[in-house]
């Protein structure tokens, strides 16, 4: 058996397409993620908002509002205002040079084109101006004999973030990537099936006329696949952790166990795809790729709140999606100290693998070749 083992190793490692899908591609994709997201934190920091203020009489009379805009643009750099007439303001907005303009009439009006973050901030600033003004009025009316109004700390923050200090959700992209890489390990499963099922390849026919038990050979191929895929997963993790500096939490052993369980799940899915139809290897790999992409999509590889959406609306879909399980398990390692959610998902992953293997086994047992 040892010689089959060694040769299967050689075959798998020399088959470039296998190594590409299971290692090179995830590494390349991870690098793209990193490129795309490395500056996101920076860009989430506040950008100065371009606005226009209509420079009419009402505005010039309103010293306190004038002062507010000045303070917000010079002291705090929230706004980058242009003081223009109404026509100019309209055309600036029309041509997307500004996010919105402020017009003082009886009330203060905010003109915008869409409902976005910048627009909300403009509105909120104006709202706050009104509300503080109203409050000051109340105070003055209440305290007829008020000597001096205390106006300090109007923008205090009363809230403190204790979210584990880990607020980045960017990491989930990388977690789905691990899930995707695991399922791509299915190419090894497909290969193992094709090399051992005589209705799928001539090489397998050769094995079937030899005195070696077919299951034994399939098993050896799968063990080899598992070792390679597991090693590749560790390399991928190593790359993400050490080179791209992605945070995977500090619990190494659960991480390694998950990488192993993920490899197992992917390969078992590949075996089932390999056994489920008699199409060519190209087509089987095509099916694996499409299914993996779909599951990764649903787990949030392209949109980060996809997984939450699925969990909220179609929870069953999130519960049977192995990429989602791996992502959640990894995220819980990163986000929580206890391992409850990790174990839940690890367990789901094991059940998934078990189901795949059971169905494969049933197909395999039933198989009798009526044609080759």
């Amino acid at each position, binding site marked *: 058996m040892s010689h089959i083992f060694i040769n299967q190793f050689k075959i798998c490692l020399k088959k470039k397409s296998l190594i590409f899908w299971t290692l090179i591609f995830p590494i390349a994709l991870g690098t793209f*993620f990193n490129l795309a997201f490395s500056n996101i934190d920076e860009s989430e920091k506040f950008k100065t908002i371009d606005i226009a203020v209509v420079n009419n009489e009402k505005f010039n009379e309103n010293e306190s509002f004038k002062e507010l805009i000045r303070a917000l643009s010079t002291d705090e750099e929230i706004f980058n205002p242009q003081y223009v007439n109404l026509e100019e303001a309209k055309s600036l907005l029309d041509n997307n040079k500004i996010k919105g303009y402020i017009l003082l009439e009886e009330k203060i009006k905010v003109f915008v084109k869409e409902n976005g973050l910048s627009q909300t901030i403009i*509105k909120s600033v104006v709202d706050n101006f009104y509300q*503080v003004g109203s409050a000051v009025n109340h105070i003055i009316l209440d305290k007829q004999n008020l000597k001096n109004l205390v106006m300090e700390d109007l923008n205090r923050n009363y*809230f403190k973030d204790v*979210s584990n200090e880990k607020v980045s959700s960017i990491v989930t992209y990388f977690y789905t990537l691990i899930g995707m890489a695991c399922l791509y390990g299915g190419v090894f499963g497909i290969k193992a099936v094709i090399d051992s099922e005589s209705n799928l390849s001539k090489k397998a026919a050769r094995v079937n006329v030899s005195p070696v038990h077919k299951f034994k050979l399939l098993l050896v191929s799968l063990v080899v696949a598992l070792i390679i895929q597991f090693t590749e997963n560790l390399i991928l993790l190593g790359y993400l952790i050490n080179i791209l500096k992605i945070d995977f939490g500090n619990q190494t052993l659960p991480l390694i166990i998950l990488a192993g369980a993920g490899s197992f799940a992917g390969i078992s899915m590949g075996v089932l795809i390999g056994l489920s139809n008699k199409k060519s290897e190209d087509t089987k*790999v*095509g099916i694996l790729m499409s299914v993996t992409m779909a599951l990764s999509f649903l787990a949030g590889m*392209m949109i980060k709140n996809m997984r939450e959406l699925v*969990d909220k609306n179609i929870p069953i879909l999130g519960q049977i999606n192995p990429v989602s399980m791996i992502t959640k398990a990894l995220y*819980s390692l990163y986000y929580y100290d206890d391992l409850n959610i990790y174990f839940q998902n690890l367990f789901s992953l094991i059940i998934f693998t078990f189901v795949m293997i059971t169905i494969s086994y049933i197909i395999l047992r039933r198989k009798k070749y009526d044609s080759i």
Partner: protein
Amino acid sequence: MIVFSTFLKIIKKYYGLILLYLVIFTIFSVIFASTNKQNNVFTAKKPNIAIVNMEDSPLMKSFLTYIKKNSNIVEIAKEDLKDALFNRKVDLILNIPDNFSNDFLNNKNPEIKFERVPDSYSSTYALMYLNRYLNLANLYNINNISEEKLIGYIEKDLKEESEVVFIQKAENNYTANYLYNFSNYSVMAMTIMILSLVMSSFKKEVIKKRNMISPISYKKQNRQLFVFNLIITLAVWLIFIIMGIFFFKTAMFNRQGLLLILNLLVFCLTVLSIGFLIGNHIQNKEVMGAINNVITLGTSFICGAFVPQEILGESVLRIAKIFPSYWFIKNNDLIVILTNYNIDNLKPIIINMGIVLLFGLLFYIINLIILRLKLKAK
């Protein structure tokens, strides 16, 4: 017509896989577009908030009423809070410290600890208006207004709001760019996959037939192949037009919708040229798949198909400029905020389309050069 029959044969051989691709990417696009259609209007979505250790003081009661007005309060047992946060059942957990009202009214500046879903707009927004309440309360408090009074005052204060006027909202599909930016991924993946699959098989078939029948001229055959590829590309284009109509109804037929459709057409033609290049010079299907996946996913991430360009960092966008996808996506973003169809506004859009077309031309020329070199080598 040998080219035609061969072509149909190949399509028949791979129809399952092609159909699978079409269905998956169409579904991806639909889901992507519909999630973003909701998410973009982020103020409309009320966050789910869980509150721990609620006090029974008048100030707190009034604060709670205010919170309820702007968000959904979710009742969750304390030990399930972490799970709830993890599963996004709550967006924000507020942990009110003991004696909060007292400390607050005695100017001890107590802090409310919170946990939240990372980077969620709705929780950021919630914190902003919650702070506003407390700041107003503080203003009254430091000016020695009693608890009972300030509660009533704040209620009135918070009704004061600015008036927001939306200009020309009717004609615009502000979210249409999400669908069309995402199409960078789906259009490229679908088109290149189908083209390269068809072309590599086609070449094999033709080589087989060459032994039996005198071949039609290489040029003619290549031209016919190009026409068929064009048909596939246009079919993919059509799918996305239909999807656009499905989502944005008649708004797809106004000036803006038509510009989006035109922009996509220009991009599709460039993708056709890329697909032709790959299909012509790479025979191995596995290598094709590899290249296809790297190109489509790679450009989608760094050019802003998944994550909007305005969120991407400067340095990434500098790299992104060497791909046609960047200009295509940038154009979508420009088109959806277009309200004034004057030369100043249209010029950059037309220039971007030109750049995308130039890319297409470039790939076509590279294709021709390689063909020429190959012929010479023979």
